[in-house]
């Protein structure tokens, strides 16, 4: 085809085109008239209305800051509240010379440059006429000093603000978290509209995970003001939607018991309600007081926390990675029974060590003299390593890995807290991907006794224990029980339900062995004072220390202590109708039976006592 077509076509085209030009012209004139009609509507019909808004008076829109939601534990104890405090605030529009004002204030009240910087950044984000805090939680002295000099500081005033307060101080700092001043990075990500007027945002824990819900929705008032920005009247107001109140599953009495019982060791205790997955205790020791973070922690205090050998800022329960040691054995034994690798009565000889065929290396049992003939019950009760070397070897790494994975090892539990670590459950694929090496049979053996590359978080361990106690009904831990707003109460996060198919007799075998750990003469935890009238199932663990990963700053003379084993204990009770599952890790605590087991027993006893009375 080409552009040569007949004259007739050409005339037709001409005609068509001129028609279109006319049509376009008419459409354009009509649409322009439409614009003019709208302009008449605004400038003639609406003139009086808009003129009154614009002439002497102007509308200013003030944010109404929502009150942040409270956080309670399961019994209604307050974990996070808002208290009145006095803050020094500046309205830049009213301050004559802002830089000079700041300079003089700095001299008068001895304000750090940091705080001035923070103020400047926040001011730039807000409207010129909005009040911006310079100092939060002023002391009586500061208030007095300023009050005297107030006439010299136009635009500067003392205001009441609500400030977040954590009455339990360090006790639940890692779970509840804290709020802090909005920093520069957060300014970029937070919605500028929603955070108009808000000075704080959740930085850690529940405060951070539930930021949107706790913060609420900013309201606004359209206020008519005169040229001096003096408010005349409110034209229109939309209330703020207050932040919701959160009720956690946490039991603060129990939390305190656990935290105190852990002393003097560093470590973590996690207790889970077996039936629901609600987390009852979530303790990480040592901890820190979150309150200084609210007003802005001083730099040196923060540095001290940061560089402390004990890592108080680190949430061990959620993020600490430990070898599970012998606490993994009940799960490995169950894997063996379920895969018919062993029968409950089948016995292996433990001479104190185990050798792989054609390999010189001796894999030793913790008991040098050996356990003689061992069946599954004795293997768990007395924690015989050789039995598990043999079992792991017969089971193979693939089946073992796949079975343990169902209990949540090597995976995040999905708890409603940010920053959870997934731990590590070694497998052939993992090793090949990470180290580009094939799997060695010896690794299967040490994986089978919870050593080697295995890494679990205390939360994972508690969750796996709860799942075992729940006979394969997978427990998903969560912290928020109820979300209560002004109008409605809704439940916390939805937890997914999953069932691991397990043979009842196999579970019975494992549970009765775990009961024997505590109650039988031969059990590794039989020294435990049994001042309770129910059966408790447990398993001790002693993990060889590699040091928790992030903990690289131990100094020379602490090395000795550092190499002491971690003491572990998992437990649930009552054994026949489990209500609570616990995991305890006492760093460098030595033996699980003597150090970790009493802590778990104490938590369980208190919980069951409290709940029987009710």
């Amino acid at each position, binding site marked *: *085809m*080409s*552009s040569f*077509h007949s004259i007739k*076509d050409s005339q037709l*085209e001409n005609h*068509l*085109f*001129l028609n*279109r*030009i006319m049509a*376009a*012209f008419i459409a*354009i*004139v009509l*649409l*322009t008239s*439409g*614009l*003019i009609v*709208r*302009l*008449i509507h*605004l*400038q*003639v019909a*609406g*003139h009086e*209305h*808009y*003129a009154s*808004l*614009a*002439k002497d008076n*102007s*509308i200013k*829109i003030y*944010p109404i800051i929502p009150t942040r939601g409270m956080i309670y534990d399961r019994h209604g104890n307050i974990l996070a509240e808002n208290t009145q405090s006095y803050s020094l605030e500046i309205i830049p529009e009213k301050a004559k010379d802002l830089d000079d004002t700041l300079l003089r204030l700095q001299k008068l009240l001895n304000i750090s440059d940091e705080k001035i910087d923070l103020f400047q950044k926040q001011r730039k984000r807000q409207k*010129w006429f909005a009040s911006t805090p310079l100092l939060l939680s002023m002391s009586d002295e500061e208030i007095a000093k300023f009050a005297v000099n107030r006439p010299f500081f136009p635009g500067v005033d003392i205001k009441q603000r609500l400030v977040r307060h954590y009455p339990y101080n360090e006790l639940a700092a890692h779970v509840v978290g804290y709020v802090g001043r909005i920093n520069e990075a957060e300014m970029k990500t937070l919605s*500028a*509209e929603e955070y*108009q007027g808000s000075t704080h945002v959740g930085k850690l824990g529940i405060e951070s995970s539930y930021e949107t819900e706790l913060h609420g929705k*900013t309201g*606004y008032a*359209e206020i008519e003001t005169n040229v001096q920005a003096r408010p005349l009247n409110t034209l*229109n107001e939309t209330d703020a939607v207050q932040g919701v109140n959160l009720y956690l599953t946490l039991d603060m009495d129990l939390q305190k018991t656990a935290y105190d019982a852990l002393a003097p060791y560093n470590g973590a205790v996690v207790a889970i309600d077996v039936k629901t997955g609600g987390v009852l205790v979530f303790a990480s020791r040592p901890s820190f007081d979150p309150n200084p973070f609210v007003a802005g922690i001083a730099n040196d205090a923060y540095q001290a926390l940061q560089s402390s050998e004990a890592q108080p800022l680190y949430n061990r329960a959620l993020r600490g990675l430990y070898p599970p040691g012998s606490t993994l054995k009940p799960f490995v034994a169950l894997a063996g029974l379920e895969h018919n690798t062993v029968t409950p009565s089948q016995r292996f000889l433990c001479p104190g060590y185990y050798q792989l065929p054609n390999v010189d290396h001796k894999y030793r049992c913790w008991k040098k003299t050996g356990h003689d003939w061992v069946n599954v019950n004795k293997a768990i009760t007395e924690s015989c390593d050789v039995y598990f070397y043999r079992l792991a070897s017969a089971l193979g790494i693939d089946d073992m890995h796949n079975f343990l994975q169902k209990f949540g090892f090597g995976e995040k539990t999905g708890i409603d807290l940010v920053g959870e670590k997934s731990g590590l459950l070694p497998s052939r694929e993992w090793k090949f991907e990470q180290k580009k090496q094939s799997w060695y049979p010896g690794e299967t053996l040490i994986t089978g006794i919870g050593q080697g590359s295995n890494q679990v978080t205390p939360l994972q361990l508690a969750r796996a224990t709860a799942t075992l106690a729940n006979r394969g009904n997978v427990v998903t831990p969560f912290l928020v029980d109820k979300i209560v707003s002004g109008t409605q109460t809704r439940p916390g996060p939805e937890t997914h339900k999953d069932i691991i198919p397990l043979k009842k007799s196999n579970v019975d075998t494992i549970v009765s062995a775990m009961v024997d750990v505590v109650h039988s003469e031969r059990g590794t935890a039989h020294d435990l004072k049994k001042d309770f009238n129910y059966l408790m199932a447990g398993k001790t663990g002693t993990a060889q220390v590699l040091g928790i990963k992030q903990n690289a700053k131990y100094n020379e003379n602490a090395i000795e202590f550092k190499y002491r084993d971690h003491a572990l204990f998992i437990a649930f009770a009552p054994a026949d109708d489990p209500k609570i599952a616990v995991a305890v890790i006492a760093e460098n605590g030595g033996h699980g039976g003597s150090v970790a087991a009493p802590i778990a027993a104490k938590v369980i006893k208190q919980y069951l006592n409290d709940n029987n009375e009710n």
Partner: protein
Amino acid sequence: MKTETHSHQFETPSVIGTILRRLHIDIPLFIGLSLAATLSFIILYSAGSQDMGVLTRQAARIGLAFGFMTVLAHIDPYQFKRYSALLFGIGIVLLAAVLVMGQTALGAQRWLDLGFFRFQPSEMIKITTPMMIAWYLSEHPLPPRPKQLLIATTLILVPTLLIAKQPDLGTAILVASSGAGVLFFAGLSWWYIIGILASLTALTPILWHFMHDYQRARVLTFLNPEADPLGRGYHIIQSKIAIGSGGLYGKGWLGSTQSELDFLPESSTDFIFAVFAEEFGLFGCSGLLALYLLIITRCLYIASQARDTYCRLLAGSLAFTFFVYVFVNIGMVIGVLPVVGVPLPLISYGGTSIVTLLSGFGILMSIHTHKKFLHR
């Protein structure tokens, strides 16, 4: 040397007139554009808080833009036609390059850093798209058959979607309408036009799905600005106050309190019409709209007199796109259209868009002043 109609109107042998004609400048169009540019300085002085720096920079841009216009007016339209496809292809490649490695200005990828200067390919494509479609359709008998229609639509959609993805909704709309303008002037059946408009309406929910959050927010704000007066609704509310308070006669030059007191955001750029309306009132607005209408009418006239199909289609589309510019900007400022980033043509401060705009007028002038040289 004289060509038909317009030479009669400007018979008077003034020196300036002669020079302008030598330069292939269309005098009525030139007067209209100069008037608009003058208005731009006047209103910018007020909206930009009497900052001479703003005026200087705007003067430099307008000078450059008039330069471009003059150069393009000199080139025979045959050359535009010849290189249409090539220029369009280059534009597409550059657009794709921007998406891959463009500089992010204001959160959107629009710039291509060529080392010595920064170039915005979406500006170039605003002109090359109608050129391409006009060239393609002019190679076939009109009105276009379904097959050509399909190909033309695809050619329009490619740059439109690439720009929308940057994301720059305003420019995407302008590019799409420049292409659609060509189709319209090519005699696209009214049934098709109704069908397209209807299906666009039906597609809105799907479009919604592909929008960015901020674009959705803009649409929601447009539907109900009072719902979000702190944030995005603020523009519209303050803009309406400015316009409405201007009344019939306006508050006079430099009399805008809304922009003066910083209530009106972006008062020098996208929302400059609000300042204009506040200071010059309904009469001023009508005058400005009349000026735009005159410019557009002249452009449509040029299109009607064009020498061949390619020139007609291109001229018609450029006139139409200019109107879309005006309509979308004013419509958004007075609150009848959602907020998209389209400046008020010839008046708003900044942007390379004024260069593109006047380049378009340069092409129109070229079409009008090169009628008698036939290259076939």
